[in-house]
């Protein structure tokens, strides 16, 4: 065991000898040595991003909520027990109903039947549940006809009642089920953001990448353009532009024009971000390497720059969704955006813009809760994505 203190020089010589031999070792050993090095799995950038994202609990919750919102919007017509056209005027301003899950010890979701009336003094509608008359909630019931995804005619709804009314979130003045309306509203509110962001992306990505990559006068023009657009405060400019919409246009056209208007202002942020990113990337050696390998501008832009900014684009899109949703609801609230019969969260909120709503029918403010929820979810998700997107940190 002990080589003895005196022999240390011999040991050192021995080590040196081993080093000399090592330099003559065959490649396979070297390979084997290298294998032992730290080598992560075959991880693509996306997988890495996903792995990092997964670690962020709040972001995942945000992502799930966002996903859920979109799923509900997609299958909205099926999930909503009523269609937009169904008015149960007998039940106007019905507060959210309480759902009972057990009847006689058995799982049997039901609501109570309601006795309707009017308060003789305030003239407010009154609803008294009658515990003796239970209305069972049925699943996959036949209800008002609708077209799933706007295409497939169907009658089945996820749940519903055969008599009386089931209204989880209460009804509005016309006796329309708020639960169904909020779901229908989400279809517009959530897509207006998507379409708006997509358009912003299109403009922002093209101009941002071009401006960053080509520089020179292209950059100059784009930068000036951005400066000018950005020197308008967004809400007033949105107000001015939406005020200019010919309101006799069809609802669909209005919807699209509003998304265009939203994106007309939204793109600058994106373009700036992308430009900065591209500017940084342009100086990266791998771009130089590609160019020296003979790659054309097109090759570089499409094979390197755009994919490299992709994660950023996704992060930026996620983070700009809230402002789109907010802008839509703010404009609709001011009466400048969408109008009935289009149903969006903003439109629903505009209709709730009453003192008496807040005092007497507070459930009509529920769309606002969903606006807030979706913004919160998008923010959480976007934050998580942003943290996860940086490819250089593992």
């Amino acid at each position, binding site marked *: 065991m002990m080589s003895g203190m005196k022999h240390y020089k011999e*040991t050192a010589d*021995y*080590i040196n000898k081993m*080093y000399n031999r090592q330099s003559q070792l065959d490649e396979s050993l*070297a390979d084997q*040595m290298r294998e032992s*090095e*730290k080598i992560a799995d075959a991880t693509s950038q996306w997988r890495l991003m996903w792995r990092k994202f997964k670690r962020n609990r709040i972001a995942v919750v945000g992502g799930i909520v966002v996903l859920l919102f979109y799923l509900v919007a997609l299958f909205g017509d099926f999930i909503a027990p009523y269609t937009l056209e169904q008015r149960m005027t007998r039940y106007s301003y019905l507060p959210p109903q309480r759902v009972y899950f057990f009847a006689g010890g058995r799982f049997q979701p039901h609501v109570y039947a309601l006795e309707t009336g009017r308060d003789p003094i305030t003239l407010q509608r009154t609803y008294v549940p009658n515990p003796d008359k239970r209305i069972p909630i049925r699943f996959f019931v036949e209800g008002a006809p609708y077209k799933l995804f706007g295409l497939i005619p169907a009658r089945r709804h996820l749940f519903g009642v055969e008599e009386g009314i089931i209204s989880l979130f209460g009804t509005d003045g016309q006796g329309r089920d708020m639960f169904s309306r909020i779901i229908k509203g989400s279809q517009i509110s959530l897509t207006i953001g998507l379409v708006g962001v997509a358009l912003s992306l299109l403009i922002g990505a093209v101009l941002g990448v071009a401006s960053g990559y080509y520089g020179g006068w292209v950059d100059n023009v784009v930068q000036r353009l951005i400066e000018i657009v950005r020197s308008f405060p967004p809400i007033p400019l949105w107000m001015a532009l939406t005020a200019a919409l010919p309101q006799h246009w069809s609802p669909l056209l209005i919807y699209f024009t509003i998304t265009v208007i939203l994106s007309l202002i939204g793109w600058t942020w994106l373009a700036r971000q992308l430009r900065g990113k591209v500017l940084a990337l342009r100086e990266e050696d791998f771009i130089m390497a590609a160019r020296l390998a003979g790659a054309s501008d097109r090759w570089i832009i499409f094979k390197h720059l755009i994919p490299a900014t992709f994660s950023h684009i996704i992060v930026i899109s996620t983070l700009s969704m809230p402002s789109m949703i907010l802008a839509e609801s703010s404009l609709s609230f001011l009466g400048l955006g969408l109008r009935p019969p289009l149903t969006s969260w903003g439109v629903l909120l505009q209709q709730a813009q009453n003192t008496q709503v807040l005092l007497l029918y507070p459930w009509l403010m529920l769309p606002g809760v969903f606006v807030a929820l979706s913004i919160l979810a998008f923010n959480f998700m976007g934050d998580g994505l942003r943290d996860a997107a940086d490819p250089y940190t593992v």
Partner: protein
Amino acid sequence: MALSCNPTLLIADEPTTALDVTIQAQIIELLMSLQQKYNMAILMITHNLGVIAEMADEVAVMYLGRIVESGTVKQVLDNPLHPYTIGLMRSVPRMGAPDQKRLTPILGSVPDPLAKVEGCAFHLRCPVYKQKGCSGKDVPPLVEVEPGHFVRCLLYH
């Protein structure tokens, strides 16, 4: 700034890394003159063996968070004992020694500092480790092989 309180010990964390040799020389010169002026000790952290050879009195070699060898500069640089120190010395081209036809690299690379390596931290890259069971559970102790010259390697037990 670091000298505004008349220190007795100056810790210099890689003060010359990322500098050009001419500037590096200026800094070394400065540090040495300051040392004389204030009569202070300098703890210098660097990966540049040349700087150490030029400046230090004593040297400690670290690998993965542990000192693997220490002693006077002469002891360690002229007579490296630990396989890592030896490998390091052999992998660096020496100026003015054109006869050194080929460098001897240390195979592999520094493991992830988070990864736990059992036994001698260097055994994965050590050219002799197979001869001895270096991958055991325990970290080899630091042994004083000659006065003031310590080494952490089972080969010297």
